[in-house]
């Protein structure tokens, strides 16, 4: 007797026959009929037409029949809401039944019926069941609150069910506690700020007690909830860790991983010299290793998480390399993950073993895996210097196999090895060149071209090789085209005599025959560089490149910290912050690790991304060296004492950026070549060179106005009298910031200083969660509020943002005085740049001095504080100059004419109360002005002079 008989049909028509059976008088027949209906339902057949007949069977003493009808109801009530009402009475009656099983079943089923009319009737029975004497009913009712919340959140709040649910956390039965926690966690997900799970030491204690006694699933819920708690001090942290550690030995891998999450997070609080800290580290390794002997699906999730753990605390698994060795029958998704972790764990101690394994993998069948294995060999070479030579020879062996995709992968990684160890392995270039023809993948072609260009002086026939690529230039992918362009320019700079024709050919191909803006722009840059200043061109193009970092694909530290707090979740599988992919409306709390090294702020403040800006802790920052560390603090991550501070990289970026940004700007900006039109037409170019005065839409988040607006402003710019607004310049080029380009300027409007920025997303992925912070600076400039970028920026979109500034921030003298160092954070990384603001931003509107006071002050300031400057090529008369300067809050107090020379006496007041007095001498017919500045703080004079110059000349 099997259920397959329920699927057989007769000619009469199934529905008709079932209807008859359902209305039969015989109980047994009825039950069989309901079973048939359920069977049809499970395979997706529509049996909703039988609704009234099935519901009629509900009034029965037979529990099985009742359950079956309930199953049916849950599926179809939604489609027949009016009929579903018929069932309410029975539900309400069942909720009063003597048998707790039936009470629980009724309240459970009622919650599954997603019909508004029924939910109204649910409230009273649910309230009773939440206080039922039987824990089985209470625990079922707890889940029912979550169901009801999903259907009608308002109702749940109005009826006070949330408070009742919170009370259940203190229930005497651990299963009830676990379900209450689970229900609250689910509800909290749609109410990020509701503080539903108000964790305090008392509740934590209750949870920890329940943890030992509830089911495995309950343990997962409780552990995940515990992970949100921030212990008050290291002792509390330790005691929680001690009570959670036994969960590492649970047979359920989800319990194990959730326990690992709690421990990884709370460990941060423990002092590293504590014995217990070491013990805990040792305890973490074996359960992680054991996860790898589970089913492949479990292994996959475990491996994705181990990948995070290894990045955060490599010491845990450093001796366990062998468990990550790949077996040939592992599923491909497990193989690839294992490989990733092997590279992360590779060190001088185990590199021989790892290389032997990788070489083995490179001869396997699966193409994806083989490719990754070859790539891994390259990464080992870069990571472990001692092994580089062996890696290179292994790669050469692999190239000899002549397997096409192996050769291509090998060439790509050899390029990286060249970047890491320049001038060391060039002897292999000859071998590489032999395989030139077989390369058909863009990445491999680009890599090979890069190698040829970079070492053009050592390759005799470099020009021939590159020329051969040039033939099919337009059929190549952009990547190859760009690389080819650069390589030929490099070649030209190295061997100018023989390759002039070649370089002209490629420049014209790139600029005239291509409609790819990136390629064209790069072509133009090279062209102009080469035509105006070949020396500068050489400096730029053949500049010494920074060595590539050892770990190429490390997760950015703040993201890693957030992910560590989310171990075991989908976020940890995708290595993306939860906010990046959890369905839109649901708010997500950003979690951060709190470490013991923090300055006593043990209470974690759940920040919601935009609020990431706060006052940096007041402390004297003595030198430039600590500055970066300070900037790193901005995202509220207290420095941790383990792991190398990632300060070195941003430092390099700052330097490199200045070189490129500044250098190119001045090179390009001075020229007015006929290219102007072209520049205007390509928005990227326009923004990049800051040529057109920026449009200033004051509205936040206005979409970029585009080329037309820019042109408009070109004409209108001169008319506006008032504050001089410098054009936007690129502060942060996209290549330094993973695709984020920031250009901006400063404005002062009716006493408010604003930093106006255009954020341009040139990356492939959406950017969000922007926040900004300044380093302390000369005049205490600081954001007056958070950076208002409310919507994520999608690729190729740009957004205007205006950030009001205050001048009450911490002060530190900068060089130059008006230098401002800025950190911008988004979901991808934290980026640093510096920019200079015109000092006139700081001139107050009430900066006009009384004549008498002026005279007295002028005399009072010692003469050594006076400085004189020349402003050349200024063709304004004194009145026009005076007007113009007034727009920037430089006030003319008096004017005197002596021997055809106009003397303007002017004053201005800085936000920090410093007065600057000026005497401007303008001689009719002479374009050169002389200016004398007197100030009690003579350091500002240089800046003020520069400001005069820019205001007068624009």
């Amino acid at each position, binding site marked *: 007797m099997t259920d397959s008989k329920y699927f057989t049909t007769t000619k009469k028509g199934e529905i008709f026959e079932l209807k008859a059976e359902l209305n039969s008088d015989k109980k047994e027949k009825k039950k069989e009929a309901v079973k048939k209906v359920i069977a049809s339902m499970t395979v997706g057949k529509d049996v909703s037409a039988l609704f009234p007949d099935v519901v009629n069977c509900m009034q029965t003493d037979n529990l099985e029949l009742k359950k079956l009808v309930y199953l049916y109801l849950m599926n179809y009530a939604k489609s027949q809401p009016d009929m579903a009402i018929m069932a309410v009475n029975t539900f309400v009656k069942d909720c009063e039944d003597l048998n707790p099983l039936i009470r629980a079943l009724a309240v459970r089923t009622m919650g599954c019926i997603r019909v508004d009319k029924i939910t109204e009737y649910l409230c009273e029975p649910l309230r009773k069941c939440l206080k039922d004497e039987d824990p089985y009913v209470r625990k079922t009712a707890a889940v029912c609150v979550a169901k009801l919340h999903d259907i009608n959140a308002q109702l749940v709040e109005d009826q006070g069910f949330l408070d009742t649910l919170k009370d259940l956390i203190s229930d005497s039965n651990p299963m009830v506690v676990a379900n209450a926690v689970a229900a609250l966690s689910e509800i909290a997900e749609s109410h990020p700020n509701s503080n539903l799970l108000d964790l305090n030491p008392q509740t934590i204690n209750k949870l920890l007690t329940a943890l030992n006694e509830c089911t495995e699933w309950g343990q997962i819920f409780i552990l995940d909830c515990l992970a949100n708690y921030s212990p008050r001090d290291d002792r509390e942290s330790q005691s929680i860790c001690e009570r959670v550690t036994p969960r590492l030995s649970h047979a359920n891998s989800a319990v194990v991983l959730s326990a690992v999450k709690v421990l990884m997070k709370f460990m941060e609080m423990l002092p590293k010299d504590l014995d217990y800290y070491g013990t805990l580290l040792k305890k973490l390794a074996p359960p992680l290793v054991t996860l790898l002997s589970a089913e492949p699906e479990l292994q996959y999730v475990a491996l994705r998480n181990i990948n995070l753990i290894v990045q955060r605390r490599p010491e845990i698994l450093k001796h366990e390399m062998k468990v990550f060795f790949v077996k040939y029958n592992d*599923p491909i998704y497990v193989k690839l993950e294992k490989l990733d972790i092997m590279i992360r764990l590779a060190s001088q101690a185990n590199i021989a073993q790892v290389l032997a394994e990788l070489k083995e993998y490179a001869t396997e069948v699966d193409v994806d895996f083989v490719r990754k294995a070859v790539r891994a060999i390259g990464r080992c070479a870069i990571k472990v210097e001692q092994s580089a030579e062996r890696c290179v020879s292994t790669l050469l062996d692999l190239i000899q196999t002549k397997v096409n995709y192996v050769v291509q992968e090998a060439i790509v990684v050899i390029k990286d090895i060249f970047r890491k160890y320049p001038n060391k392995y060039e002897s292999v270039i000859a071998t590489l060149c032999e395989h030139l023809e077989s390369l058909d993948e863009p990445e491999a072609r680009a890599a090979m071209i890069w190698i040829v260009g970079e070492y053009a002086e050592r390759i005799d026939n470099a020009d021939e090789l590159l020329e051969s690529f040039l033939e099919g230039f337009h059929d190549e992918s952009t990547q190859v085209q760009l690389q080819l362009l650069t390589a030929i320019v490099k070649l030209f700079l190295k061997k100018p005599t023989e390759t002039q024709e070649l370089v002209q050919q490629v420049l014209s191909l790139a600029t005239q025959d291509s409609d790819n803006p990136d390629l064209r722009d790069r072509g133009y840059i090279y062209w102009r560089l080469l035509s105006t200043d070949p020396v500068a061109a050489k400096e730029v193009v053949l500049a010494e490149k920074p060595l590539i970092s050892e770990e190429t694909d490390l997760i950015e530290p703040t993201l890693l910290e957030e992910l560590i707090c989310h171990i075991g979740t989908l976020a940890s599988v995708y290595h993306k912050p939860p906010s990046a992919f959890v369905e839109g409306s649901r708010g997500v709390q950003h979690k951060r690790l709190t470490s013991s090294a923090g300055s006593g702020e043990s209470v974690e403040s759940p920040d919601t991304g935009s609020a990431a800006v706060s006052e940096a802790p007041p402390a004297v920052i003595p030198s430039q060296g600590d500055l970066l560390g300070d900037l790193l603090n901005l995202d509220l991550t207290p420095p941790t004492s383990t792991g190398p501070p990632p300060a070195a990289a941003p430092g390099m970026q700052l330097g490199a950026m200045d070189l490129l940004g500044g250098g190119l700007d001045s090179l390009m900006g001075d020229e007015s070549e006929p290219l102007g039109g072209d520049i205007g037409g390509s928005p990227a170019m326009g923004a990049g060179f800051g040529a057109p005065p920026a449009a200033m839409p004051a509205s936040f988040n206005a979409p970029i106005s585009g080329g037309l607006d820019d042109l408009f402003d070109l004409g209108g710019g001169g008319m506006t009298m008032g504050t001089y607004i410098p054009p936007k310049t690129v502060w942060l080029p996209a290549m330094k910031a993973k695709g984020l380009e920031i250009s901006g300027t400063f404005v002062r409007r009716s006493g408010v200083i604003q930093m106006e920025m255009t954020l341009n997303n040139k990356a492939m992925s959406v950017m969000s969660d922007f926040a900004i912070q300044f380093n302390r600076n000369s005049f205490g400039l600081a954001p007056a509020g958070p950076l208002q970028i409310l919507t994520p920026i999608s690729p190729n979109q740009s957004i205007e943002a205006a950030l009001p500034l205050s001048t009450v921030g911490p002060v530190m003298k900068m060089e130059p005085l008006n230098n401002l160092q800025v950190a911008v954070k988004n979901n991808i990384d934290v980026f640093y740049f510096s920019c200079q603001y015109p000092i006139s931003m700081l001139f107050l509107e009430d900066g006009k001095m009384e004549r008498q006071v002026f005279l007295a002050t002028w005399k009072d300031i010692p003469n050594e504080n006076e400085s004189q400057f020349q402003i050349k090529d200024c063709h304004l008369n004194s009145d026009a100059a005076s007007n113009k300067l007034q727009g920037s809050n430089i006030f003319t107090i008096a004017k005197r004419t002596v021997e055809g020379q106009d003397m303007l006496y002017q004053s201005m007041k800085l936000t920090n109360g410093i007065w600057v007095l000026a005497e401007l001498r303008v001689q009719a017919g002479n374009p050169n002005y002389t200016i004398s500045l007197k100030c009690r703080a003579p350091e500002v004079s240089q800046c003020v002079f520069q400001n005069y110059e820019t205001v007068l000349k624009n």
Partner: protein
Amino acid sequence: MIHSLFLINHAGDIFLEKHWKSVISRSVCDYFFEAKEKAVEPENVPPVLQTPHHYLISIYRDKLFFLSVVQTEVPPLFVIEFLHRVADTIQDYFGECSESLINDNVVTVYELLEEMLDNGFPLATESNVLKEMIRPPTILRSVVNTLTGSSNVGDKLPSGQLSSIPWRRAGVKYTNNEAYFDVIEEIDAIVDKSGTTVFAEIQGVIEASVRLTGMPDLSMTFMNPSLLDDVSFHPCVRFKRWESERALSFIPPDGNFTLMNYHVSSQNLVTIPVYVKQNICFFETGPCGRLDITIGPKQTMGKTVEALMVTIHMPKAVLSANLTATQGNYSYDLATKVLVWDIGKLNPQKLPNLRGSLSLQSGAPKPEDNPSLNIDLKIQQVAISGLKVSRLEMNGEKYKPFKGVKYLTKAGNFQVRT
């Protein structure tokens, strides 16, 4: 939490669906089918897939896909563990987990699923508890049910479910009281072509079959518990006792269950019971190759190696194999390119050997990859790690039970590279 479950067969047909919240159209599975198409082999379908509005988390077991749909952030391991539990339960109820058996018992499966999850939260997943609520079908019961009209759904609250020992039901009675334990160890190893062990570890498990009356309290001690690198226990085991005394102390569930899993790895030397001498090569000239494999005993702790079997996944170009085996039979499956050599018992005096020639597709290039050998074997009455149970005691009940411990060593993932 878990929103919906779809059961999908090997061919890609959905044959059962269950929703715990609102109904999700089965078209959501299209994303899965796409990934399945891409993965070629069903084993290679990634277990976590992202779709625009849902996440699909799946497992592949017994040629069936268990695909769950989730909408919010849930721990994926929790979902995967649960899916395996569903498969275990089906196997436990019906003897095996197959499409035809599920279809034969579709209503029971549906009722089970309803009991296992509520609103996506696990409700009852312990086999003991489930069996009290929904009785597994037996021929006898279905006959009785038809005659008397009684049902196979329990109408009492399962007793164990809310006690502090949810895994055991109250009032268990047996006439023969027995407690049997199987210590089963699997060797996972990779041996390279020169015979050196690249990696070896032992996965151990203690399976229990306990039929004892009342509420017995058992404790088990080992001769050498320090061997174990990592352990994970059934929830019934008292962790504190293990921490302090290295003894397993527990009130057992009724029936069959896994008491403990353990892991012995690099810290302790893992013995490899057999050695393999092999030579598989393909000639540069002509479409053929040679194969020569000999297997001999290495460290077998004085026991016989049984059920010895070698499986080789040959390169695609290999058309046929013309081999002679001194012992056992070999077969070569042309479609899957798998060569299986079933040896049986290993006789140390006369080592089994398989040799001969392989013929390749003419014109095909010499295969790049060298096939790995997969070894299967069994050794009775020994746990290769050396683990031994020293005592098994029972408290709390007066009767004297039959007790027994058996040992078995198997090859798990035992690979020899060539």
